[in-house]
């Protein structure tokens, strides 16, 4: 029977066909980089297998398993715990993965990832078509592949494809995304060869054509997908133009690939391709162009396209054949099922924080800001199970930590009441969202999600209720458990003996819109809160100077988004003074002192304080003799951010 969402999104949920394989819908689970959950030698771990079971159950018609490197030496290995497919000893785990995917009724595709310029993580060098030095310090010095080595690499790919098919996969995929070996050969930037593999687009595409041919010969009955850049975003380095990128796609199509997955950007690209500052749907024109150029080849696409309704429209309008989705499914593995059941308001949204990638590039397993379970599927302690003893839980604070704890505990059968002194849920996140220059809707969607889930699950939310000792006495013995998730506050007490401290303004009051500031503003604190409010004010026409005690601004910002803030600071003309602290405030301005002992007067109308922050943990002391169990979570224990708040809230919810 057709589900209501399937009827609404009928184009997305229509069956498809890839080669001889029927696919139940038009949704392709993208390989999503790698998880870093595996062994250093490329072996697949129980942690990974547990994760893949979840991926298999996402409801996608086609599931691409994460990229495996194809060579024993590890020249193609880019990530610390990337899986390998160069030997039959890895077969049993690949067989299990293929089986999980098939058991879920999906088509199984294995990606082969030779990272080229970004590879050789254990070797101290990487291989490329030409010796083009690195532009990012993350990567290793290059060595040029000889013609003989090129043949070997191609054979390794074909061998890996054959092995994947032997393991039970239906199809394979070779990826050039984002600047891997295939891209290195294709690109004018990294391919400077003078032999038949370099020079013209025709020559640069030779490696790809030979690769396709070798894999097709090795696995003639199985479809091959190839991931190619629609745009490299490497113009400044002399990378391929869009025309050249599509010419290379044409070559792939002519060679008989079954699917082209259109991608955007290299890791070295100076602009964002799928971060939170990119509007959803921004890159769709690239897949639309590919689909028009190659009507007989299946086109998959998903860069910065998190919305099933938009994907449905794209399939309907011929923008692409398959919605390639990954990160939204990290945030909520139930996304497709919820879309099919028309329960999109219950989807835990991907907010594009790129926490996942921030961690990968620090050789850590990827996690998700929004999904605390990600990467812990193998651990029973992380699963939401019915509570043995049902408890009455009160939660102080309706921010992300409190709301996450509330809905998780409620799912386990506890009775949950959330108290907050504000007139709406969301805590400081609401204020932060209101000032966010990237895309406020993303952060607001987190609050909306908690509102929907609290209502659906029957979490009682009592707003405009301040929790203090008097209040606690009024509800004494009504609750078994109290979770203090009251967030943090600006520690104004630090400035209490400062001359003119009465003139200071609390950043949170400004963020909430409760306090207006003058034209010229000094912001004390160049962390996430200080910068976000400063950027908002600067965009609104204020002249802003940020004072930071540390050497650098943005110290608490997610690495993959820090660059955005520093760029905004520059673009908006925000002045920064680092290694300095506030010494005096007057109606005329602020005086700061640097670590070198230099004093500086900055004329301004308002001085806002965003740092330091102090955990609102006072209630712990007040409540410790008033309730059976007392816990704390999120900023109320240590001021940090959204990721820690949600994860701690969840861990409390599954534990109590």
């Amino acid at each position, binding site marked *: 029977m057709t589900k209501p969402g399937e009827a609404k999104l009928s184009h997305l949920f229509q069956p498809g066909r890839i080669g001889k394989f029927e696919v139940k819908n038009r949704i392709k689970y993208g390989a999503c*980089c790698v998880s870093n959950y595996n062994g250093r030698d490329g072996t697949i771990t129980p942690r990974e297998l547990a994760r893949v079971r979840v991926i298999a159950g996402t409801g996608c018609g086609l599931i691409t398993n994460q990229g495996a490197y194809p060579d024993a030496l590890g020249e193609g290995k880019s990530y610390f715990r990337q899986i390998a497919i160069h030997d039959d000893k890895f077969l049993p785990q690949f067989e299990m993965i293929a089986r999980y995917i098939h058991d879920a009724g999906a088509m199984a595709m294995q990606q082969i990832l030779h990272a080229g310029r970004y590879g050789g993580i254990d070797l101290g060098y990487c291989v490329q078509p*030409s*010796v*083009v*030095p*690195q*532009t*990012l*310090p*993350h*990567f*290793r*010095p290059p060595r040029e592949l000889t013609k003989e080595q090129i043949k070997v690499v191609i054979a390794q790919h074909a061998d890996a494809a054959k092995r994947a098919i032997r393991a039970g996969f239906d199809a394979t995929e070779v990826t050039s995304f*984002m600047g891997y070996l295939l891209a290195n050969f294709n690109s*004018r*930037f990294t391919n*400077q060869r003078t032999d038949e593999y370099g020079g013209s687009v025709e020559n640069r595409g030779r490696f790809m054509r030979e690769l396709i041919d070798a894999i097709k010969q090795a696995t003639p009955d199985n479809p091959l997908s190839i991931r190619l850049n629609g745009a490299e975003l490497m*113009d*400044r*380095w*002399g*990378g391929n133009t869009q025309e050249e990128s599509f010419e290379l796609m044409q070559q792939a199509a002519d060679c008989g690939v079954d699917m082209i997955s259109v991608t955007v*950007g290299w*890791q*070295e*690209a*100076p*602009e*964002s*391709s*799928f*971060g939170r500052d990119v509007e959803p749907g921004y890159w769709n024109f690239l897949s639309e162009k590919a689909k028009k150029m190659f009507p007989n080849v299946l086109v998959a696409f998903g860069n910065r396209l998190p919305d099933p309704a938009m994907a449905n429209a794209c399939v309907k309008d011929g923008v692409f054949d398959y919605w390639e989705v990954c990160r939204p499914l990290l945030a909520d593995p139930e996304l497709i099922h919820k879309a099919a059941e028309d329960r999109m308001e219950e989807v835990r949204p991907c907010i594009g924080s*790129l926490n996942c*990638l921030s961690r*990968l*590039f620090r050789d850590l397993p990827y996690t998700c800001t929004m999904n605390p379970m990600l990467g812990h599927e193998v651990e029973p302690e992380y699963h939401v199970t019915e509570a043995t003893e049902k408890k009455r839980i009160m939660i102080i604070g309706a921010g992300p930590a409190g709301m996450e704890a509330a809905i998780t505990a409620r799912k386990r059968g506890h009775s949950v009441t959330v108290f907050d002194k504000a007139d709406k849920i969301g805590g400081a996140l609401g204020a932060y969202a209101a000032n966010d220059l990237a895309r406020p809707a993303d952060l607001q969607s987190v609050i909306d999600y908690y509102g929907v889930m609290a209502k659906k699950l029957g979490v009682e939310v009592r707003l405009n209720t301040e929790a203090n000792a008097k209040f606690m006495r009024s509800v004494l013995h009504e609750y078994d458990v109290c979770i203090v998730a009251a967030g943090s506050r600006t520690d104004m007490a630090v400035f209490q003996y400062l001359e003119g401290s009465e003139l200071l303004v609390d950043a949170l009051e400004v963020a909430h819109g409760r306090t207006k500031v003058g034209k010229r503003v000094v912001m004390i604190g160049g962390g996430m809160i200080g910068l976000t409010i400063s950027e908002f004010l600067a965009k609104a026409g204020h002249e802003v100077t940020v004072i930071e005690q540390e*050497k*650098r601004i943005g110290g608490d910002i997610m*690495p*993959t*988004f*820090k*660059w*955005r803030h*520093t*760029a905004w600071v*520059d673009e908006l003309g925000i002045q920064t003074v680092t290694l300095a602290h506030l010494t005096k405030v007057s109606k005329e301005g602020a005086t700061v002192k640097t670590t070198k002992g230099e004093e500086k007067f900055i004329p301004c109308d308002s001085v806002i304080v965003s740092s330091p922050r102090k955990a609102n943990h006072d209630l712990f002391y007040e409540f410790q003799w008033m309730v059976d169990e007392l816990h704390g979570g999120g900023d109320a224990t240590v001021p940090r951010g959204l990721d820690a708040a949600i994860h701690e809230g969840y861990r409390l919810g599954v534990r109590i």
Partner: protein
Amino acid sequence: MTTATDQTFGEIASWQSMLDRHRELFLDMVQGSRIGFVSREASGILPGKHLDGVKVASEVPMLAWQLENGGMSARIERFAGMSSTKVDLLLVADEEALETMRSELGGDTLTVIKRLIRRGRMMFFVFKNKAQLQDAGYEDFLDSLGLAFLGACR
């Protein structure tokens, strides 16, 4: 080779003054740390033609910053291609960037360089990996140019 004035980079004394003004950025750097600047046009390191830079036909001037005696010194050396140039970081400036740098030497030159990088007027290559650069004390300098934040899947 050191010259007082170079046609490409201007007054070396002005560069030295600029480096002295920003000496705190180099405090953590280890002795011998080196940063080079070359002209994109002169070196032949043009977009899509980097090999010409690797195998540069004739030697061209390179502005080298080298950490010695506790401070960063500016000098003009010869650039004979990437493979033979012993620098940790190479910045390749086009004509517009060079002109802008020359005219801004008395001001906030590092911010100017950061903007030139962002605008694509100046390319950069790294010859040490992240850990090596961190160990060599490059963090503050890379940060001042915005380089530490660039790249890696945004």
